[in-house]
């Protein structure tokens, strides 16, 4: 597992402490009931804490799965 994926997994563990680790990689708003609008904003802030940059609330609706968040972070990392 690369570093970004591991750090993102850690973020999910903070926001969804009851989620089994093996379920995180495939998690999405469609499959995880606890991933509601409040959890989405909290997750965004935890990712900001972890990666040290600000995310835009406009991006929130599109970032609805672990994979999409991972891709987003990779792009941000490349830009940086």
């Amino acid at each position: 597992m690369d570093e970004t994926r591991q750090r993102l997994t850690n973020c999910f563990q903070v926001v969804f402490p009851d989620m089994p680790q093996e379920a995180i990689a495939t998690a999405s708003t469609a499959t995880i009931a606890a991933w509601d609008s409040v959890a989405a904003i909290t997750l965004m802030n935890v990712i900001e804490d972890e990666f040290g940059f600000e995310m835009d609330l406009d991006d929130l609706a599109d970032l609805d799965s672990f994979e999409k968040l991972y891709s987003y972070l990779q792009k941000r990392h490349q830009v940086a």
Partner: protein
Amino acid sequence: MTITEALRITQSVPRDVRPFAVTLACGFTPLHLQTFLAAHLQQALPDRKVTITPGLYGNLVGTLESISGAALPDGLVIALEWPDLDPRLDYRSAGSWSVTAVNDIVVSARTMLDRIAAALLRIPAGPRIALSLPTLHLPPLFHTPGWQASQHELALQADVLRFAADVAQGARVTIVNNQRLAEQSPAAARLDLKSDLYTGLPYTINHADRLAAQLAKALVPPAPKKAIISDLDDTLWSGIAGEVGPDAVTWDLASHAQLHGLYQKLLASLADSGTLIGIASKNDPAVVAKAFERKDLLLRPEQAFPIEVHWNAKSGSVARILEAWNIAADSVIFVDDSPMELAEVAGAHPGIECVLFPGNDYHAGLAMLRHLRDRCGKERVSNDDALRLESIRRGAAFREQASGGATPESFLEQLGAVVTFDFAAVGEPRVLELVNKTNQFNLNGSRYTQPDWQKLLSGKGALLVAVSYEDKFGPLGTIAAIAGQADGNRLTIDTWVMSCRAFARRIEHQTLKILFETTGASQIDFRFTPTAKNGPLREFFATFLDEEPQSEFRLTRPQFQAKCPALYHEVREMRRAEAHG
């Protein structure tokens, strides 16, 4: 604190600990405010599992009006913002900002404040209430330019302050200090408009954290320190009394020594509200005595006791002062201008808080004054606070005479002691305060929040007795409290505390006697737990049980009667009618 840290704090609590339920009343989406509030409260209550239930969105007053006796929370936190007073003050609202509308907003806000005040009054006794006044700027809806305070804006602010002053009058509602909040959360960096419009949370993350911290402190305040021990030279006053002479030490404006004068005024004010003040100084006693004769001293000499002045180590002075006060080092602050003296005292008295008097650094000086007020300040001052220092002085005289030539029995017999048992002390703030700060004669070390205390006393057969004492040396005030439940001929005691000022007077024996007699109990079960500090209570019970208790135990009436020594007190009992008469 970051969101991640806050979440980790709330998730690290074992699931099987007792819950502490808080209702969070706010008109906006609580989001991070809720997360941070849970984390800060969790830090203040490590033995509880804090759970926060947000109220109704957009209907703060509705949340307050829905709180009833059926499901009372342990605490209520209210984060008031301008939109709670009129929806047109909400950036999310489409309501008009016309001149006519602004006039109407002032009127409707006033009506809403009255409704909120009425709802607060109707909340049944029990939960403690923390309230923050609007923390965000009003929207730019007034006709004046922003640099000018509009008449309407001032009227709104005046109404809010009037409301706050009214609801703070009772002991129930604690108001967050907006000025202190502003130091930690600058006004211009509080509103996150995009978050407000997208999510309904108007706060930046930092503001949510800082406000949550203040609300948590208002809901669960830290226990105040009981005492301050102060140095003299270059601390209580400017100058070395032994060198310049007692008449030449200063603490006034003209001598540029006002910081010392402010320090004296603060100590005097704290002494007035029951904080003990002692002196530990390496000095010539005769010189210090002369300095204390000066009429312009702002700390009155009678407000400081004991005064330890000699050339020996200050740790020894502190030890003797602690012994005279009979309190532990961790309840005390030691103030000195010498880092070396602070280190010497800190090394000898683990737990004591050492504070450096910062000399001519005025910024640090003000910070120190505020710190001392923060650590020793009290929400309210009782008659017992005023009695404390005098009773300690009398205690010293008591011990001196008790250790003199007379036998213990003849000494106790001629004391003229009166013990008053108040069976109607429910609601007396002094009683809970005593329970939460007494360490040595304490049945189990349990501390109670106001709601927990209320619950304990509202159970079936609940019993609360407050004990006060006086003798020829003067009154000690309320010095003990017992809480438990009576069930037929059995009595269970959950809490028993007695101030260390009241030791050696057999008040604890008289208390047991009264408990057996008034309840008709043939046995008393004590919910005892040994703590690091409750040795005096263990020793007391060992006289009846022939060994120190290790866990919960039972004392029968014959066991008590067989070992109870002679009691010489006049006993008075206060029941409900007398207590309220």
